[in-house]
């Protein structure tokens, strides 16, 4: 049994009288330590799938199993615990708390989970040891995203979920971020899932899942992932 399994997952949203099917019978599986890139056009259901996987949204039907735990059946309290301890999330717009400094943003995450890493170490890891006292507004976009990644990995999560982490960044910075993610996955043996609409970066992944019309259209394993530095787009 795979580490992560999506089985016949459906997700419907009600917008007034209209029902929108965001996920329609989606199936895929991911192994532990894999770096997965999810690609597909807008509205294909990538973010919905990622949110469900991160315990941030519920399913309408189907099962989501993570490390033997069926998270679609979890109660609210267990779901919070799951989010707190098993998931690290990186958002497109960083979602840092503006009132807190970089290090405090990291502490915001570490203070609530048990096996957290030392925030200072993590800040060092992401290369921001000397900027940790800065507020998000004093940092560049790439630096902010690095803080966000530090916040996510400081929790020492089982899963690192990234929703378009480079979407708001320029090419170079985006590349640096992707490298950070790839290195983290490799070094920490962390399962990392990256959503992107940029199919060009797919070769860096161990597994590429393509979404279309609310379902995982194809799942392909890449036996020879290419380091990000070598990818050009």
């Amino acid at each position, binding site marked *: 049994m795979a580490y992560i399994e999506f089985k016949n997952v459906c997700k419907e949203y009600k*917008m*007034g009288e209209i029902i929108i099917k965001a996920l329609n019978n989606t199936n895929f599986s991911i192994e532990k330590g894999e770096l997965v890139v999810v690609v597909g056009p807008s509205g294909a259901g990538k973010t*919905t799938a990622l*949110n469900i996987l*991160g315990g*941030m*949204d*519920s399913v309408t039907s189907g099962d989501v199993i993570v490390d033997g735990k069926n998270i679609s059946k979890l109660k609210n*309290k267990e779901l*919070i*615990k799951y*989010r*707190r*301890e098993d*998931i690290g*999330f990186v*958002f497109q717009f960083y*979602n*840092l*708390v*503006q*009132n*807190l400094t970089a290090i*405090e*943003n990291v*502490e*915001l*995450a570490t*203070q*609530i*989970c048990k096996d957290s890493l030392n925030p200072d170490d993590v800040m060092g890891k992401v290369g921001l040891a000397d900027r940790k006292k800065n507020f998000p507004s004093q940092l560049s976009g790439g630096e902010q995203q690095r803080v966000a990644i530090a*916040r996510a990995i400081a*929790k020492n999560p089982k899963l690192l979920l990234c929703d378009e982490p480079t979407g708001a960044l320029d090419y170079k910075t985006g590349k640096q971020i992707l490298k950070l993610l790839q290195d983290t996955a490799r070094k920490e043996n962390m399962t990392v899932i990256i959503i992107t609409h940029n199919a060009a970066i797919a070769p860096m992944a161990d597994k590429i899942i393509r979404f279309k019309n609310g379902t995982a259209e194809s799942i392909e394993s890449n036996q020879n992932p290419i380091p990000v530095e070598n990818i050009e787009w």
Partner: protein
Amino acid sequence: MKIKKALLKDTFKEIKKSYKRFISILLMALLGVGFFAGLRASSPDMVDSIDTYYKNQNVYDIEIMSTLGLTDDDIEALSKIENVENVYGTYSKDGLIKTNDKEIVSKILCIDDVNQPVLIEGSMPENIDECVVEKNFLEGTGKNIGDTIAIEPEKTEGEDTEYLKNKTLKIVGVVESPLYISRERGSTKLGTGVINYYIYVDKENINSNVYTEIYITLENRDKYQTGSSKYEDYVEETKDKIEAIKEERENARYQELIDEANEEITKAEEEFNTEKQNGETQLQEAENKINDGKAKITAGEAEISSNEASAKKEFANGEAKIEAAKTEVAQNALRLNNQKIEAEKGFEEAEQQKSGLQSTLDNINNAIKITDNSIAEKQTALETAETEEEKATISQEIAELQATKQVYETNKQSVEAGITEIDNQIASGKQELQNAEAQINRAKSEIQSQEAALEQTKNKTYAQIASAKKELEASKQEIESAETELETARAEFNTKIEEAEGKLIDAREKVSDIEKAEWYILDREQNAGYSSYIQDTESIENLSIVFPIVFFAIAALVSLTSMTRMVEEERQEIGTLKALGYNKFHIMLKYVTYSSLACIIGGVIGMNIGFQLLPRIIWDMYEMMYTLPEFIVSFNYQYSSMGLGLIYVCIVGATLYTILKEVKETPATLLRPKAPKYGKRVLLERINFIWKRLKFSQKVTVRNIFRYKKRFLMTIIGIMGCTSLILAGFGLKDSISSILPNQYEDIFHYDMLVSLKTSLTTEQRDSYIGELKQKEGIQEIVETYMESGTARKR
């Protein structure tokens, strides 16, 4: 739940960042709590002020008045009642004072340990010619401390005792009475019928044998606040106990008066009886005297006539005797005359004898002389004689001569003796005659004197008789006048007796007319000033319930709006936190802390301002109506915690309402921007002919009304609240300003009111009214009868 440090940091930084919002919520809490606590405390503060005032001045809890006055026995009986601490008997009466041609009516109270007035200026009266007045008195009359005023004498009917011993009083001070905290001084039968002022005099100055009021203070009354229901219950309970002895005391007082009156009547009756008897005996005595007098007069008349008769007889006897004596004397005189003539003859003879003797004597004397000469010659011859013979012859011759002389001498002597004898005989005869004449004359004069004496006696006797008669006549007249006098005295006596009997009957009737005593057991609520004050505190209390509700509602709405905005602004942050694994309590805590802090800080500042400011503002308005020495403002923990609690519920409740709605959402939803509310078709669209004519912006407006119902509702509520507040203000002004026209145009139609004395007769009244009717400018006169009465709850 452990509060996370980073999250807490975030909260405080949030406050710093959005301090305007924080302050707006803080201000709402400040206003809400300030108004609530301040307004609510105003009424207790006012009650507290009067309570302190009344306790300090030892103001009564229960007042007793009686239609027949109150006595020391009543005080004793009341002292025995449970819960009664002190019983004070005091006096008060209305008095007229004339100053500057103005007639004012004043309540004259006496200084006592109960209801002590507060000295504002000057000093308290120390003796019976001093008094203290209220401030308005000085302002109204233009008098000053040190001036004197005179209380007009009372025009009481029948009562002869004046209320005050000393009616000219010097003003020595200004006081405030706890009995008159409002401008209301009560009504009176004197003057204009309204009491203008009150004055206090020394208790010694009061001249009354009964108390006009009894004031009672209760035990343990410090435990209760005046006006509170506990206090009222306590007073009511004691009043019930007094009610229980009321009838007995009423009867006792009534009996006392009856007994007193009866005793007086009995005394009067006794007096009347003795007086009557005295009068009767006096009259009887007078009559007896008159009768005696009459008898005496009759006796006197008889005596006088008998006396007269005997006197006449006596006088006749006396006259006859005198006549007899007169004839005897006349005979004697005649006889004497004859004797006289004879004696004259004898005297002539004796005179002749005498002259013969005289010539003899002369011869002798000549002879003697010749002899003497011869002797003298012989003598000379002797001396010249020289012989002895011659001498012897001469001496012989001398001796012879001397012997002759001797003979001569002897003859002379016998002649002289004869002359002397004749002289003696004549003299004795003459003497005899004279004696006889004198005797006759004496008899004559004796008779004359007897006659005179008789005449005198006669006159005297007759005069006496006449005067006796006169006297008798006078006595007769006297007796007659005495008789008429007696008659009038008797008549007078009878009328007097009748009168006295009538009076006695009247007095007995009056005794039966003595009405039974009636006690009025009152408490502070019957004091006009106090009760209106308490009522005002109640109306403030009611106001203090309504007004803060508006403020709380506004506070809730404002905090709802700003917290909604804040939560909406931080939607993504909430989502992030949720995604990071924070539970909803962690997240809510931030917003609850935020609003709680604003609320508590604002509330605490607000209550401190409110407790000081609002009661004083309200008291400022009421101070125009009430006179209290001190207004007490205190911090009220009950209302402060209540106000803070309410505002907390409003603001934090609103916060919880908004945040709860948000945190319920899944992190995924929160991370997405909030979906705008979807537009809906509205009913108006179906009415095609209107919808067609609407411009685009108007269509948007109409749809938005239904799209954002909350916003729409808030606007409505806001406008509603403001409009109602403004309208209430105008309405208040309107209703107050219409009171005067209502009262004096619609209810009271009169321009002038004349009070007539009840003692006027119907004719007097009619003539006066007739006179009035003819006066220029008088349109109509309506005669009415007004009487004040007391209504009591059964």
